[in-house]
């Protein structure tokens, strides 16, 4: 409740902010209305038809009261012709009005969702065009939100526009109409519009503040709940179930209190917004009776006047609510605009050239850094002959993964050149990423790959035993809605993907460490059978894996420190020995 008190202090800046927000909202509307102008114009036309018919419907009523009802009950005469005409007017206008509503609502929906689709498409194009560097500087959830929730939020501003325009038309037409029917009564009624409107908008603004507060508490609660449930094992281990419940209950209590504050205000305003127009209406009846007495108005005119006024109250009542979405729309649009106005970073892949025959990969004078101040990789050169299997060995954080990602064209070097054999690169990441699609799609990723190649890849990657057990075979859906695979199985599917793509250079980033040593040995032996076709560079930490390679590249501090067979390196490099010993420390020291 405290925020009501400080309202006067901040109202100036709030007004200023509201005005600039309004300008921003108008800019947003101007921009996105252009995506599907025809749909929008149709919706507004429907809205206008609805508005005019709403005002016109009072004509039918007036006709019926003056020419049929009063004639029949006060003068006891029947006028069948007037009854028919009145009926036709009422039904005709009623149907037209409904038609207007149907057009307005369906086209407002079309405008909104088609625009959302257009926006999402554009954001997707941008997101997909941005290379890995861009993605790494962002949270996945944030980018997904910009593609989905934010575009929905931006277009939410469009939904109420046709209806709002009809409210505007209705107010103008009915104001003219009321003034035409009776000037003094018309003036009173027309003065009511702005009063109710500002009351409404003021209420909306105030209640929004409480809703925002509640929304903030909800965010806190959601975060706390996530954490608490994630930590369920710890909670159970220490018997802290009750304590955690109490902690979450405190946050829930704050959410409840914020909402109850909102209910208190809302219930009051709901009642006021109900009472004030009705009281004015009563006053209009009294005033109208005076006009009827002085002969300046008929009973039918007065009744239709009151009817029209009643009819107008509903739109006036919800108009504030209609615009309550604006801040969300503007915020959503800002986030989308951020993505759309960013320049697209050049694809690092373009720098990778084709190496001469017989060379698997050649790196010359390569340099790389995350930021301008430091150079991580500086002047690194290496060359691997086609068809060789080479192990890349080094301590954690020495730059193995970075080097692999540079070779795969995922990130861009600052200088130097990389060339790979004709046919490109396939990289298998440390952690396999599988799509919630079929097994087949996970292997081909939508490329045309012959069934023969796929089957071969499945065999080479040692996937046969579990793929054979899948009833749907390659058409089996993976992931949440389908079969869930173990970590090692996922790695093997990722490996099958790389093998099926049949690229000249195969990069394995510690891929096989998730497999048990026996399976790993089988996979690596299978790979060697393909060695004539593919050059393999494998990041390895198990001595048994390293021993399977033709040659070892020993990496330390972002440089190739040494190169040779496993035995050669062991005998001549103290650092290499120390590293390998660290790998087996496990066995000796613990």
């Amino acid at each position, binding site marked *: 409740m405290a925020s009501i008190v400080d309202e006067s202090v901040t109202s100036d800046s709030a007004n200023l902010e509201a005005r600039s927000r309004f300008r921003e909202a108008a800019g947003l509307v101007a921009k996105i209305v252009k995506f599907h102008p025809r749909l929008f114009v149709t919706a507004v036309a429907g809205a206008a038809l609805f508005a005019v018919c709403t005002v016109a419907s009072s004509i039918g009523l007036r006709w019926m009261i003056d020419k049929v009802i009063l004639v029949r009950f006060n003068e006891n005469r029947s006028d069948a012709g007037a009854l028919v005409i009145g009926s036709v007017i009422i039904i005709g206008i009623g149907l037209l009005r409904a038609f207007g509503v149907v057009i*307005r609502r369906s086209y407002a929906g079309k405008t909104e969702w088609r625009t959302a689709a257009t926006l999402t498409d554009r954001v997707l194009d941008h*997101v997909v065009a941005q290379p890995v560097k861009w993605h790494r500087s962002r949270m996945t959830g944030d980018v997904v939100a910009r593609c989905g929730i934010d575009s929905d939020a931006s277009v939410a501003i469009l939904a109420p526009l046709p209806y709002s325009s009809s409210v505007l038309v209705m107010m103008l037409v009915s104001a003219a109409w009321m003034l035409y029917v009776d000037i003094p009564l018309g003036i009173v009624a027309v003065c009511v519009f702005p009063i109710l409107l500002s009351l409404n908008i003021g209420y909306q603004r105030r209640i929004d503040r409480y809703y925002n507060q509640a929304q903030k508490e909800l965010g806190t609660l959601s975060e706390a709940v996530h954490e608490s449930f994630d930590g369920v094992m710890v909670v159970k281990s220490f018997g802290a179930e009750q304590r955690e419940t109490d902690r979450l209950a405190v946050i829930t209590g704050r959410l409840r209190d914020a909402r109850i504050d909102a209910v208190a205000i809302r219930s009051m305003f709901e009642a006021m917004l109900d009472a004030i127009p009705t009281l004015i209406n009563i006053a209009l009846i009294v005033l109208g009776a005076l006009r009827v007495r002085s002969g300046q108005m008929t009973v039918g005119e007065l*009744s239709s006047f009151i009817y029209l006024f009643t009819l107008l109250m509903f739109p006036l009542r919800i108009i504030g609510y209609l615009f309550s979405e604006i801040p969300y729309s503007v915020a959503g649009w800002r986030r989308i605009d951020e993505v759309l106005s960013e320049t697209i970073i050049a694809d690092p892949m373009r720098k990778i050239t084709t190496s001469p025959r017989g060379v698997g990969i050649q790196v010359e004078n390569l340099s790389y850094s995350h930021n301008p101040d430091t150079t991580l990789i500086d002047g690194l050169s290496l060359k691997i002959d086609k068809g060789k299997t080479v192990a890349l060995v080094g301590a954690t954080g020495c730059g193995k993964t970075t080097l692999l990602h540079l070779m795969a064209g995922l990130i861009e070097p600052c200088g130097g050149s990389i060339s790979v054999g004709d046919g490109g690169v396939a990289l298998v990441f440390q952690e396999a990423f599988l799509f919630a699609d079929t097994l087949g799609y996970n292997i081909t990723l939508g490329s045309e790959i012959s069934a023969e190649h796929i089957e071969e890849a499945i065999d080479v990657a040692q996937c046969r035993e579990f793929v054979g057990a899948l009833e749907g075979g390659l058409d089996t859906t993976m992931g949440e809605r389908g079969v869930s695979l173990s970590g090692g199985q996922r790695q093997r599917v990722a490996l099958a993907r790389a093998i099926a793509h049949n690229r000249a250079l195969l990069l394995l980033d510690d891929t096989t460490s998730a497999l048990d040593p026996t399976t790993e040995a089988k996979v690596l032996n299978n790979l060697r059978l393909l060695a004539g076709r593919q050059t393999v560079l494998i990041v390895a930490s198990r001595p048994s894996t390293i021993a399977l390679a033709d040659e070892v590249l020993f990496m330390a501090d972002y440089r190739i420190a040494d190169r040779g067979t496993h035995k050669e390196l062991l005998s001549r490099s103290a650092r290499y020995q120390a590293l390998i010993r660290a790998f087996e420390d496990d066995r000796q020291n613990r």
Partner: protein
Amino acid sequence: MNEPVGRFTTAKTINRGFGVAPALSKGIGVTFVLAVVGSLARVVIPVTIQQTIDKGLQPDDIRIGFIVQMAAVAAVCVVVASLALRQAVYRLGVGAENGLYTMRVKLFEHIHRLSLADHNEERRGALVSRVTSDIETLTMFFSWGALVWLLDGSLMFVVACVMISYDWILALVAFAVSAPLYFVLRNLQRRLVAAYDVAREKNAELLGTVSELVSGTETLRAYQAQTPMLRKSKQAVRKRADAQIRAGVIGAFLFPSGEVFAVFTIVAIICVGVFRGVDSGLTAGSMVGFVFLTYRFLEPIAEFTEVVDQTQTAVAGLRRVLGVLDTPVGPPQAPNPVALPSRDLNIELKDVSFSYSSRLDTQDDDLPVLRRINLEIPARQHVALVGESGSGKTTLARLIARLADPTIGSVFLGGVNLKRVANDELRRRLVVVPQEPFLFAESIAHNLLFAAPNAEREDLEKVIMNLELTDWVQSLPEGLETQVGQRGASLSAGERQLVALARAALTNPDVLILDEATSAVDAIAEVRLAKALQALSVGRTTISIAHRLSTATRADRVIVLERGLVTEDGTHDDLIARGGEYAKIYAQWLSATSVQN
């Protein structure tokens, strides 16, 4: 915890919801009466018009005095009704908020007490949605849908009463002509709900596809395979838009149906009224009043059509919430707990079998995780559990920690059946250090205090010292006050384990169950961990799930599990000498980590 959609009818679901959160329905009768009084404000205008025309504006006799008097009465009615309305809205809102608060808190506790089997990765998100978005659907419902049902429902009731009191024949005409609207609404409504279901489904598909496109971006780029996935996403975008538009168009036809019927009803009333004439007792005023009332009567229809979908969403949300509350909690609390002996807690497993499907099938493909295990672990012995993944060693450790109960057989701690030990005491005496210890996004001290909220600063420091971690803590930017970040992300994997060990040490447990980390940590942390572990396990019964065989070599006793059975049990040297499975695994491991291959 499967979602029991359709298991209960809507009415039964709502009733059970009231049972869970009594505040939702408490005093609902009074609220309804207030709402009925509140809706009187909306019939004031038709009645005033009728009275004005009939009694104030007779062609030959215009009585302004009467009109003013009547207007004053009407104004008072409006004010009273509005106050009642205010009260009704407030009571409904406060009742809802209190009720939903209770429901949330009940959910928190219930979910925390669910067994670990109900807490796996896939279900975690669902559980979070139960207390967040599902309860939110109810909040949304109570802040709009419920209001509409309550206020518009009582409005229709009041208007119908006023109509009948004016003239029952005209009222019947009004009801008869507008009756077919019910069938139109029901038909369109059914389609609308189906269309919304499709829209929701397409929306989920869109979000799923887009989130894969984004999170799989490195993979897609590594294979230059963005285009097919982008095409798939855009298809999902279009399908979602189509589904939303379809629902919108059905809604567009549904929305004005009430007004269309109102028009026909009004014409019918006027025709019947005019036909019957003055002799029937009808007056011009009551005719006009009837026309106004007809609009009032059918006006709520449009709003009803808007909230039906929301109502169904809310009921579905409630159903899911009840589904969680119906899921039995993990090991139940001991009703009459027996105290544990003060020292020397030995562990005994008698004929223990465990199956996740809660029944022991004999079929080969659904083998129990553990089968007829009999074990005795004396106090202060250090035991290493060895076996391939899936052999049952984690489950065995969980049964000893009573994170689950055996399907058959019993586990005894210090001679007392675990089922009869109070949870609080058990958690003080026995601590589990999981593979990936979880840390809250707070300071290290806060995370330590989680184990023992009443511990003093000195206790923390003593534990840190005993575990030889003082120099590590001092090396941190803010010592014990260092923030660990989300799930402890600012610390390395090894450091997170150090915190977990210190946390365990703080409770000074008699039994320590340790699930070793599989992921390698850097060499310095490794040494620290080994030392801390050594210090921690002195004088305690320690059961390690060994992923490194080096742990087994140091244990007093090695227990080998294979497909749910204890196949070997003895010291490291014994088992090596025996030349069985353990000796084989050990030899394999030796060769995999050997320098010379």
